[in-house]
């Protein structure tokens, strides 16, 4: 059972945001979605989370079309971490996390316990009673991560898989927390859970994802194991940047570094101009 997108097409104001895109996310895997700005990553995420209805194609959640799921039932099966939440009210961190329990009914003692566990999971247990509005950007992002974890906290009957969709979860995090967040995603994927992460950093994708999907102009350029997909020609095509692939010094994954670029012409001219003066 999977979260499966089939032949997705989305057009907005004359522009094709997604073109015939098919992709499936299975339980137990971390799938990183990468691509240049405007490649359609966020649009894909919005379609997968039923926020946007595709013009053509459909998304199936565990074998059933997304539109046929009652909203609450699909909410128990997949949670979505937004890039930014407009929340601007002084809830405590714990209260924000507890909102993840809304699809499961009232917040009882059990829910509070789970919310506290989820906060500990993202390393924010000491801030449970702090007001959300007093938290830093990175802390807010981790509170929301705890909220989406608690939304799909318990296993479903018959080991039905759950899915976690994360939209650039590392955007406002420092280096240590970027890795901690992705390690958490990796850990969670081991429990009947499929994790899809929209990422900008190819090295994070290479290190933590089981599969990488590369998007360009709304189309799927390639999908597969990081070592197979992340190679210089493809990256140059997707991002327009010449890169070199090195072996990671410690891990069995590729390390992507940008190549030295020829200095821009204007700079050269300036350097040359300075020579006769000195």
């Amino acid at each position, binding site marked *: 059972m999977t979260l499966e997108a089939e032949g997705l097409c989305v057009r907005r104001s004359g522009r094709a945001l997604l073109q015939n895109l098919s992709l499936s996310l299975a339980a137990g895997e971390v799938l990183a979605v990468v691509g240049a700005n405007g490649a359609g990553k966020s649009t894909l995420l*919005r379609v997968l*989370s*039923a*926020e946007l209805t595709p013009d053509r194609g459909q998304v199936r959640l565990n074998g059933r079309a997304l539109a046929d799921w*009652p*909203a*609450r*039932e*699909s*909410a*128990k099966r997949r*949670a*979505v971490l*937004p890039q930014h*939440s*407009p*929340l*601007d*009210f*002084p*809830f*405590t961190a*714990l*209260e*924000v996390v507890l*909102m*993840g329990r*809304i*699809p499961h009914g009232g917040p009882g*003692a059990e829910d*509070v*316990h789970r*919310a*506290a*566990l989820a*906060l*500990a*999971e*993202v*390393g924010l*247990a*000491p801030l*449970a*009673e702090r007001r959300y509005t007093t938290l830093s950007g990175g802390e807010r992002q981790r509170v929301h991560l705890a909220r989406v974890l608690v*939304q799909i906290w318990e296993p479903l009957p018959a080991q039905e898989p759950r899915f976690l969709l994360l939209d650039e979860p590392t955007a406002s995090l420092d280096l240590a*927390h970027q890795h*901690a*967040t992705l*390690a*958490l995603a990796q850990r969670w994927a081991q429990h009947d859970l499929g994790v899809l992460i929209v990422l900008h950093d190819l090295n994070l994708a290479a290190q933590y994802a089981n599969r990488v999907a590369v998007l360009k102009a709304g189309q799927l350029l390639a999908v597969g194991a990081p070592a197979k997909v992340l190679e210089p020609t493809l990256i140059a095509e997707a991002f327009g940047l010449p890169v070199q692939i090195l072996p990671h010094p410690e891990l069995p994954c590729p390390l992507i570094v940008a190549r030295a670029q020829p200095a821009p012409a204007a700079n050269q001219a300036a350097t040359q101009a300075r020579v006769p003066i000195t």
Partner: protein
Amino acid sequence: MSMNTQALSLPASHPLLQRQQFERLTLAALLALMVFVALLSIAIGPVPIPIADVLRTLAALTGLPVAEVAPQHEAVIVSIRLPRTLLGLLVGAGLAVAGAAMQGLFRNPLADPGLIGVSAGAALAAVSVIVLGGQGLAFLTQALGPFSLPIAAFIGGLLTTLLVYRLASRDGRVSVMTLLLAGIAINALAGAGTGLLTYLADDQQLRTLTFWSMGSLGGATWPAVGSAALLIAVPLLALPLLARTLNALLLGEAEAGHLGIAVQRMQPLIVTLAALAVGAAVAVSGIIGFVGLVVPHLLRLALGPDHRLLLPGAALLGGSLLLLADLLARTLVTPAELPIGILTALLGGPFFLALLLRWQRQMR
């Protein structure tokens, strides 16, 4: 990301339990305040009535066997003070709950039915019925009878809320700037419409209209209380049931959708309920500003933004605050009476400015 097991039991148990106790105490205190202010409002006036007589009369009304009260006092209570007090409680509770709900809907604590033009829209519709009720809109007044005024005000409020929401939201995000600017424009337009109708009105209607633009509980009669109670009771009871939906909406529309909330159905429902409360309040008491702004804000300071507490709390504190304002309005310049809207504006205007300044600092 350390799994600190020791920290787990702490946040779940004691600070939370302490806060829940504090929340219950606060709600109880608000209830006590409301009862106290209501008794004061019945006792104080040109004819002072001892609290004991007030209690005795109220007990007699509920059928309890008690000693006789001076008939003059009883008459004042039953025909003047009691309906006025009940109306004040209803209008205050309705405005405060509607304000809290709109702030949740717009995800902004500055939304107030008066500021964003909803009250003015409701008032314009109601004034149209007063002035044109005998002519152009006669079919309406005949069909709806005593409810024509509140229903017209409700429709006016509903249409303005929808219009403001349309203007201020884009891609599920509400722009505060557009919201307040749209409010200014709608207030101006509705004010112009009301002004135009004032020009057409005769002397008798004119007197009704002036009381309207400033707000007053002076029109408190039992039929007015009845119609207001009937219409305001619906949002007062229904909006607290939507508290969790309102909480989720604060996260954002998309985020609420991801939590399994049927956002497309819930938003119009909340708009309708809030407009019903504002419309009914405006129909019986005119435009009373700032109650919907000040009350939820004070409560958020004490109880936090959770709508499950905020909405019942707003009903209790809104009623008390409006009764206090009314008490001042009719005692400060006796035997004359100040329009209550002047008092709430005197209190709410500076309050709003302070909020605006703080918001501006935050944005930097």
